[in-house]
């Protein structure tokens, strides 16, 4: 409230330095040194080796597809929800957060049961005399797993930014002769940009770096960059290489942070 209260920020500043800034510095240190502690760029250039480059390419492709699918599913949904009365605001947010109370690994595993050759979905499809699905253990199943897990993180920012649009602005556009399509392109879409950027960030980064979904739904055939890094840390114990590869991932994270700093200055597109 007043300058007297400035010392109140000390605990949080200390906490952020010790547990956010210093740990990131540790990654830089390990990523730029070898086992003897000498400076090297080998851990970073290792991304260019055939196996790692392929893992990064596959991860980028799958996460871009997942982000696009999430966006296409979530935008119409958020538009419908945004016109529901404000009274129900908390209820709507709860619907999308509630599934997280069931463990994420179990929920992803349940998709195996749904998607399997003799799984639930195929039973329903056979019953309806429709062709069966054969997507388990394919990249399509990984995309489905990503969309399933990260969809709420796209819906909530979009919903929050769309719900904030004053209905009078839309009515004014309509009164001034804009048709529905034009109103959408010129009014609704530009005003929801903070939500779009925040949604894309919240889906793309987790999808790019996930390391369990591919093992659970992709049959472990496809190695994503997250899987590679996880193995360097838990199995091969090559922390230097793992840190170097993480630094490559951090390039994408930093790009995302800059984008959200530019387009979402006031945190308007936040999840909450």
């Amino acid at each position, binding site marked *: *409230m007043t*300058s007297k*209260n*400035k*010392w*109140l*920020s000390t*605990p*949080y500043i200390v*906490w*952020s330095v*010790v*547990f*956010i*800034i210093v*740990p990131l510095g540790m*990654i830089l240190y*390990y990523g730029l040194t070898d086992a003897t502690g000498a400076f090297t760029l080998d851990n970073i250039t290792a991304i260019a080796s055939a196996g790692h480059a392929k893992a990064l390419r596959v991860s980028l492709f799958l996460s871009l597809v997942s982000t696009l699918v999430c966006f296409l599913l979530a935008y119409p949904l958020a538009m*419908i*929800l945004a016109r529901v009365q404000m009274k129900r605001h*908390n209820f709507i947010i709860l*619907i999308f*957060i509630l599934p997280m*109370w*069931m*463990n*994420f*690994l*179990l*929920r*992803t*595993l*349940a*998709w*195996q*049961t*749904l998607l*399997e050759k003799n799984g639930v979905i195929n039973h329903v499809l056979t019953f309806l005399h429709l062709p069966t699905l054969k997507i388990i253990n394919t990249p399509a199943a990984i995309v489905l797993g990503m969309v*399933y897990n990260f*969809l*709420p993180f796209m819906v909530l920012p979009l919903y929050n930014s769309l719900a904030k649009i004053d209905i009078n602005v839309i009515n004014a556009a309509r009164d001034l002769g804009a048709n529905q399509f034009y109103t959408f392109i010129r009014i609704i879409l530009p005003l929801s940009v903070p939500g779009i950027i925040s949604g894309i960030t919240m889906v793309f980064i*987790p999808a790019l*770096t*996930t*390391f*369990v979904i591919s093992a*659970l739904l992709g049959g472990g055939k496809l190695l994503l960059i997250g899987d590679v890094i996880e193995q360097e*840390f*838990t199995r091969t114990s090559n*922390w230097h290489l793992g*840190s170097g590869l993480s630094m490559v*991932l*951090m390039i994408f*994270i930093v790009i*995302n942070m800059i984008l*959200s*700093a530019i387009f979402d200055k006031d945190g308007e597109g*936040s*999840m*909450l």
Partner: protein
Amino acid sequence: MKTVAKRIYIALIILFLYAPIGILMVLSFNESKTRAKWGGFTFKWYIALFQNEEILRALFNTLLIAFTSSLIATVIGTVACISMTGMKRRAKSILMGVTNIPMLNADIVTGISLMLLYISLGIRFGMGTILLSHITFNIPYVILSVMPRMRQINVSTYEAALDLGSSPIHAFFKVVFPDLLPGILSGFLMAFTMSLDDFIITHFTKGVGVDTLSTKIYTEIKKGIKPEMYALSSLIFVTVLTLLVLINLSPTDKKKAE
């Protein structure tokens, strides 16, 4: 016609989100041990659950960490929000930028960065390291839900309370705190949920022999998940659902809505 289409669309998305949960609940009553086939209806996994000490210990760890970490994060986060109102614009935006890092950063990067920190500080891996990590990723959720409330607060009412002879702490709890409370509560709930559902960061910062439900499930995946796990998660889910329905139906809330 259009509203019907809208409703069908919402229903399909909700079906998509909740279908796996339905499957897990059905599996918790499945007599057969494999997920692949239905062996008949049984309650035995629910009984077995309460005799399985490993699972109960993991549950205890999970709840203890979720509760403690979100409580501490709520205190640190709320205090940080209050202090930020007195800050210069530049300092404030730097601090908010740092706050956003754990949210925007990949969990795997946060996880390994904390793991490297604990290793170099020589901290022994265990419940303590999990707790520290969870507090770290929970604080941003608290700050982001308290901050909007903080902006709406009128400093004059607080100053008026001081002028009228109230001590700063008393004035804070009488005037400012009640307005912040909804934000604090939703921040706490969000932090609790995130802590409960976290796997990746716990995976990198837990010690050998210490397990939360997530990491326990992860090790079980290779051997086959014990059906008791399905029973436990169904119980947790139904409990939370019931609590939320009760809160939403509570008479005080209805009055307010009217």
